[in-house]
């Protein structure tokens, strides 16, 4: 079991309201990612779920039980921190054994569990080393090992991959996703990296200024963002926004079009522009096009793109993919 239910949860630091009333239901076995810019409250909410921050008002239920004031140790949750937070004076073995020893588990069973976790995470050869003798990726695996060994009802990850280099981050991302599939335990994962969110999550909660802007599956958020903020935050490269004269028909004040939903032509189209920077990624190419009367557009095209810097081209959006936003930034139905 590992369902978490947040009901009208808030957090104030003095006069500053960091988390405005939030309602969220995290289902048992779900991998949910909290994503948002720095200072949006996602880590604070995770720490409130962990019990490391007090809740100003509202209720946190874990497996149907009110855990709002339950101390962290009694919530049955495990947390993996950004800085790994390993015990530097203990060997890997003792780091992993620590939560089991606190639970007064028999020494033989502890040894068994350590061996099993070490095998799962490829740590068997490092059990007698201290954290200082390990690489970043190994340390993160120890931190994960320490979390999974006690079989918690849910895992909380607080930006666990931000200290790793790019290639290791991709590997660890896969390892965590695989771990989720094999353990089938609830995971709440905080990140500011929307690629991590898109690739790992069953559902994503997009945070902004202490509120959740939208909760949904990665593709739901990508294709049907609730507002301009979500549209801008989800997707890489970023969506292109076009401010227009307010429409008298449906009140559209701005449009959004993703880089892969723009067609390129050398003869004619909706917008004329000149190609600026070209980013070749091999399988695909990103063109940064300076469009007359608008900002620079990012356009995604095939890897064997024939254009070069300074070429004049025409761009046209796929009409059915255009996103319409009203004056408040809310998404309007596309009537095209």
């Amino acid at each position, binding site marked *: 079991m590992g369902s978490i239910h947040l009901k009208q949860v808030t957090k104030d630091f003095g006069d500053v309201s960091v988390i405005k009333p939030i309602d969220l239901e995290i289902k048992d076995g779900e991998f949910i990612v909290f994503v948002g810019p720095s200072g949006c409250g996602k880590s604070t909410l995770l720490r409130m779920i962990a019990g490391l921050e007090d809740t100003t008002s509202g209720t946190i239920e874990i497996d149907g039980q009110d855990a709002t004031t339950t101390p*962290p140790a009694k919530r049955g949750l495990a947390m993996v921190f950004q800085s790994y937070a390993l015990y530097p*004076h203990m060997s890997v073995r003792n780091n992993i054994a620590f939560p089991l020893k606190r639970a007064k588990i028999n020494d033989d069973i502890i040894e068994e569990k350590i061996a099993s976790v070490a095998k799962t995470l490829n740590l068997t050869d490092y059990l007698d080393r201290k954290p200082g003798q390990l690489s970043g990726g190994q340390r993160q695996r120890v931190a994960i090992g320490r979390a999974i060994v006690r079989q918690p009802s849910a895992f909380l990850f607080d930006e666990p991959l931000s200290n790793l280099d790019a290639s290791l981050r991709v590997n660890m991302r896969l390892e965590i996703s695989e771990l989720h599939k094999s353990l089938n335990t609830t995971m709440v994962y905080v990140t500011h990296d929307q690629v991590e969110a898109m690739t790992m999550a069953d559902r994503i909660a997009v945070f902004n200024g202490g509120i959740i802007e939208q909760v949904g599956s990665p593709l739901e958020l990508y294709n049907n963002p609730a507002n301009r903020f979500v549209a801008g935050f989800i997707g890489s490269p970023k969506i292109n926004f076009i401010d227009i004269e307010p429409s008298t028909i449906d009140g559209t004040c701005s449009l959004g079009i993703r880089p892969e939903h723009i067609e390129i032509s050398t003869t004619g189209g909706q917008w004329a522009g000149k190609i600026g920077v070209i980013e070749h990624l091999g399988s695909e190419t990103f063109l940064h096009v300076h469009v007359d009367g608008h900002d620079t557009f990012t356009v995604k095209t095939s890897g064997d793109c024939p254009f070069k810097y300074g070429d004049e081209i025409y761009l046209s959006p796929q009409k059915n993919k255009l996103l319409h936003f009203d004056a408040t930034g809310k998404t309007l139905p596309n009537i095209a």
Partner: protein
Amino acid sequence: MANNNSIKTKLIYTFIAWTISGLIFFPILWTLITSFKTEAEAISASPSLFMFDWTLENYEDVLARSPYFNHFWNSIVISIGSSILGLLIAIPAAWSMAFVQTKRTKNLLMWMLSTKMLPPVGVLIPIYLLFRDFGLLDTKVGLVIVMTLINLPIMVWMLYTYFREIPNEVLEAARMDGASIGEEILYVLLPIALPGIASTLLLNVILAWNEAFWTLILTAANAAPLTAFIASYSSPEGLFYAKLSAASAMAIVPILILGWFSQKQLVRGLSFGAVK
């Protein structure tokens, strides 16, 4: 040219450093040398630094005249006892100030430090009366208590500085792993902060060992430590410089040796957190 200048600067700094160190060390050296002189040579109008008849008679006299080892034992009990008792109080205090900060933590720390600026004589009468009424005069327990209280602000400050360097996340991880506050302090905080705790302990042993004001006032014969033992050699009949020097040497040598061997630890402990 630049190289010459830097060598010159180095030489000047080295000379200044040695001069200052020599000035600081000279009284100790003089005491040690005087302790090997006869009383006549000690008060000679033209004292000699090394060219005199070296003798151990002052040490023999001092050992024969006073129970040196009793005082030595008292110094050990008072300095180590007060440092350990102080640590037992200072560790949880510093923990709460470092990790459970409130708006007033900084003020509390400043207030604690400000008590060190109070002249001890300001609380002489109340402490003396309390000691008299509780039967603590001339007892080791009494001195352990008073030394603990005197040095507690410094201990809390030192430990606080050390604890602040430990990432809060490590302690939070322990809490998530099911550790109680006591277990978190015992199994995680203390082992990580061990170098800081050791230097706090060492510094307080030295401070308590050298403390003279309260030991002279609150002790007579039973609990008198080495500071009182030195003072007993200044009598109304006059000063016996050579014997006084021998007594001083015997009182300071143990702590000098301790300080010498632990200087690395002490310097690290005192400068910890000052530079990052």
